């Protein structure tokens, strides 16, 4: 445990220099997170004639710009590396190190945070110029909770990817399973449509699924759609999901490693 802690700064350093070394690729990868902007354009067109539900044009702008920032901060790509390394057998190298591979992946991911923050800044700037801060919540408690909501959202994203990635120990098409997960994410996380605009039963269903806590929850907290009580309750639920999905991921990982034969490596 102590050894792992001592390795952390180095792991983070390596991750950061990797992200800087492949900055062009990193930039392209982040540019492909353009869906919120497309949806913003679309919903603005819809709201041109008057507000939709409780969303007017500026509300949509606030929602999708914050969604873009949250997505930039919480995105992860571990599943592609994981399935690739399991299939190719190169995972064996990671297993030789005295650090849990999932932790190493997590460090690589977190280490890119300065770059992600740098890319989120222009979005935030556009936000203040185009929408103004009146569309953000002014409650200091909510702002204190917001970082935890972001960390929780990132953890769910990362752990779910690890869980599905660990399935690559068993099946070859873990990628397709993840595609289904992403499809569900698109609808139930509020990525394409703010969850409020769905019919009531769908909104209620979304509250029971993990997807909402990966995006809509932090976004709605920041733009002040939720009251204090709701935010606290949902934060608890979010971290419950983190715990459950984390435990499942570790379990699947441990079971899967037994089958790992490093073929082709």
């Amino acid at each position, binding site marked *: 445990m102590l050894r792992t802690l001592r390795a952390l700064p180095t792991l983070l350093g390596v991750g950061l220099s990797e992200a800087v070394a492949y900055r*062009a*690729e990193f930039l*392209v*990868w982040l*540019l*492909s*997170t*353009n*869906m919120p*902007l*497309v*949806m913003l*354009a*679309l*919903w*603005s*067109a*819809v709201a*041109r*004639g008057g507000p*939709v*539900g409780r969303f007017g044009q500026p509300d949509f702008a606030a929602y999708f710009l914050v969604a873009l920032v949250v997505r930039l901060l919480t995105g992860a790509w571990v599943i592609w590396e994981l399935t690739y390394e399991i299939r190719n057998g190169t995972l064996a190298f990671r297993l030789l190190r005295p650090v849990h591979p999932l932790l190493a992946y997590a460090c690589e991911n977190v280490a890119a945070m300065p770059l992600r923050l740098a890319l989120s800044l222009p979005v935030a700037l556009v936000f203040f110029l185009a929408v103004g801060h009146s569309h953000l919540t002014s409650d200091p408690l909510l702002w204190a909770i917001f970082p935890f909501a972001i960390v929780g959202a990132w953890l769910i994203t990362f752990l779910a990817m690890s869980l599905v990635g660990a399935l690559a120990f068993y099946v070859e*098409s873990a990628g*397709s399973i993840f*595609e*289904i997960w992403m*499809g569900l994410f*698109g*609808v139930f996380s509020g990525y*394409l*449509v703010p969850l409020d*605009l*769905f*019919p009531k039963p769908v909104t209620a269903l979304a509250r029971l699924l993990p997807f909402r806590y990966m995006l809509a929850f932090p976004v709605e907290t920041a733009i002040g759609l939720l009251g204090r009580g709701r935010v606290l309750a949902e934060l608890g639920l979010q971290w419950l999901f983190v715990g459950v999905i984390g435990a499942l991921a570790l379990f699947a990982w441990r079971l899967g490693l037994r089958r790992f034969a490093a073929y082709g490596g």
Partner: protein
Amino acid sequence: MRRYLALLFVQLRASTALALQYRVEFLGEGLLALFWTLWSLVPLLVVYGHRPAVAGWSFDEALVVMGWFTLMKGILEGAVNPSLTSVVEHIRKGTLDFVLLKPADAQFLVSTAKFEPWRAVDLAAGLALFGVAFHRMGRWPALPDVVKGFVLLACAAVALYSIWILVIAAAFYVVKVDNLSFLFSSIFDAARWPSTVFRGAWRLIFTFVVPLALMTTYPALALLGRLDLLTTALSVLGAALFATFARLVWLRSIGHYTSASS
């Protein structure tokens, strides 16, 4: 010409044989494609649940655009993507030499190298969406409009293919382009909406940089009988110019190919 047709037939047969080996995957991917088509209707349903029309497009008309989007996606993922991803692999490993040595045009060989026949599900789904849309409108498109629509479909496929050839040409210079394909798919996703919905910068990008309007909105307008002949002619001209440009860039950049591993 006949030789190339025969070659195309051979390549198609090889891909089909390969696909038939993995029957379970065939079924799984087919079902997945069907799921995606239905699932991608959700945002459309929500939008039109709140409004009868958006930027002058009724639900049924937007459904026609969605039909073209599904068709184009089938073409992209079934006929264009698989071959061109394998070229990138060839370039990186240096095995493109074997392709270049063959006595046929290299661009033709690399672009027909691999097909994924189960993407035909997407084509069927696209046609089904047309069926539903026009059934709900209570009228059927006139024959000249259908012809116009399919001429534009050909143009769209050519434009899509040319963009890909340009991406591949980039691969001769900057070996790693996997991410570029990812970026392209993410942009292409916006084609499911009528292009007139977008304004300002997005509209410029979607009309001239990545001609999404040409790929789905114009064919839909043609099928709805709202596209004049001039725009059709201009689209054909534009697609032809684009293809010529891509061909020239391809010829230029293949001259830069320096077999990676030898």
